[in-house]
């Protein structure tokens, strides 16, 4: 770690990570895009592929606008059973600065609750690999990569993780 990050900066980064999860759990999907920078990237890739050096990501948004397009699509175009998530995020580690962004890691568990039968299942576990930058004193994701642990997705992944 070459640059020390202030206690306040660390708190702000933790808040950013928690706000992402809470916005999803509360159904405020439109509040997510502003947490990315304009050119911010959001990817979801399996550990199975990552471990083998395979480049595939099942979600690969390469700008804040693309992320907004995806949210709009799952709101108006895509068909899936009504559902919501509950995130548990823990182990947030601020690793330090590299190439102009702060590297952050955390773990998540996401339960998925289906409205049609009330079932709650453990939908996904994995790691967030974030690169965070401060813009106007506020932290934003320059990139947010979700590496999910299981190679299989139950039915589909509509709502982001």
């Amino acid at each position, binding site marked *: 770690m070459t640059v020390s990050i202030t206690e306040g900066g660390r708190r702000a980064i933790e808040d950013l990570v928690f706000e992402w999860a809470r916005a999803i759990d509360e159904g405020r999907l439109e509040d997510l895009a502003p947490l990315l920078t304009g050119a911010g990237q959001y990817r979801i890739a399996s550990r199975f592929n990552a471990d083998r050096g395979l480049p*595939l990501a*099942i979600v*690969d*948004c390469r700008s804040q606008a693309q992320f907004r397009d995806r949210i709009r699509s799952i709101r*108006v175009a895509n068909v899936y059973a009504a559902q919501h998530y509950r995130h548990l995020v823990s182990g947030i580690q601020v690793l330090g600065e590299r190439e102009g962004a702060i590297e952050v890691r955390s773990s998540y568990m996401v339960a998925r609750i289906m409205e049609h039968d009330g079932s709650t299942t453990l939908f996904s576990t994995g790691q967030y690999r974030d690169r965070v930058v401060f813009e106007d004193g506020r932290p934003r994701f320059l990139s947010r990569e979700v590496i999910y642990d299981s190679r299989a*997705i139950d*039915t*589909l992944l509509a709502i982001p993780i």
Partner: protein
Amino acid sequence: MSADPVEIFRQEAADLLEALEQALLDLERRPGDRDLVNTAFRALHTIKGSGAMFGFDDLAGFAHEFETVFDRVRRGESHASPALIAVALNAQSFLRTQIETPDEASPAIGDGIRRVLRRPLKVLGYDTQRFAANWKNYHENPRDSFHANILHTFYGTFGLSRQAQESAMILDDHGRHVYFYTKVGTDRASADYAETAATLRSHNPDFRLEDTRLLKWVDEFGDGVNMQILTLYPSFVLHQVCNSIAVRQLVPRSPTSSDLHWTYLGFADEPAGMTDTRLFQTNLVGSAGLVSMEDTAVCEMVRRGTAGSGEGEASFMEMGGKDLTSGGSTKLSEKALRNFWNTYRVQMGL
């Protein structure tokens, strides 16, 4: 005893295919076993040779490409990975159905495979969707070409496709294999188009992507086809959606659970930029695909809807008839579904 040479070939090929299947299953457990690789190669080599001799040219051509793969494994240029064995088992099953029940539509289906898989491939990654439905529920999907515009509304919503586009659905005589494709830029200025489109839930002319890079694709095969969904009975799909290329394997887990394994592909010799375009367009397909994520969800809904409320109960929706030919020849027909179920029931002796 039959002296019909074609019958003799069928019998010989059936034995060879059985040996091939056993070799492939053993290779799954012992991927480094050279004897097994040689057994697979020799079986395919003989099928190719005698197939060509008895006039089964398409079959011989397919066996030749299949054989080439095992020749590469034999030479140590490639290895017998689980993915390769899985595809080989599908190809083996395809060869068997071609020998047992050859038919006229198959050459077109073979053309659909060769249209896309024309150069050495590389794997870009895997994706699995696990869904709570019977594997046959998934087969109804590609056989209903009209479903795309009702269900997959991303197309219509973002102007990627219109119902009036040129498209074709080619089936074999037994409703087993389906070759579906659409071409872009062939919208007909039909008088009732605007009216029809307006009634489709998916149509919204004000709806545009903010970042349209996702829809930019290269007509790499030079025929204007922006989507091909080729389904081989019982368990294989080859898709080209814009520049995304993948094979899907449908694996039953139980009567009410199935896996759909996606293997995403690029060509081994392509520039990095082309590979990147394919990776980017994965956004459209697979578990989280903006175009196709709902396929598995709909299989689950259909299964819940048809299961009935009590033990042994089931429901059925009659649309265009109950026999194999009624329902007309337009895209608005579920005739292909009836043929599929009939073939399955005949094969299973139901």
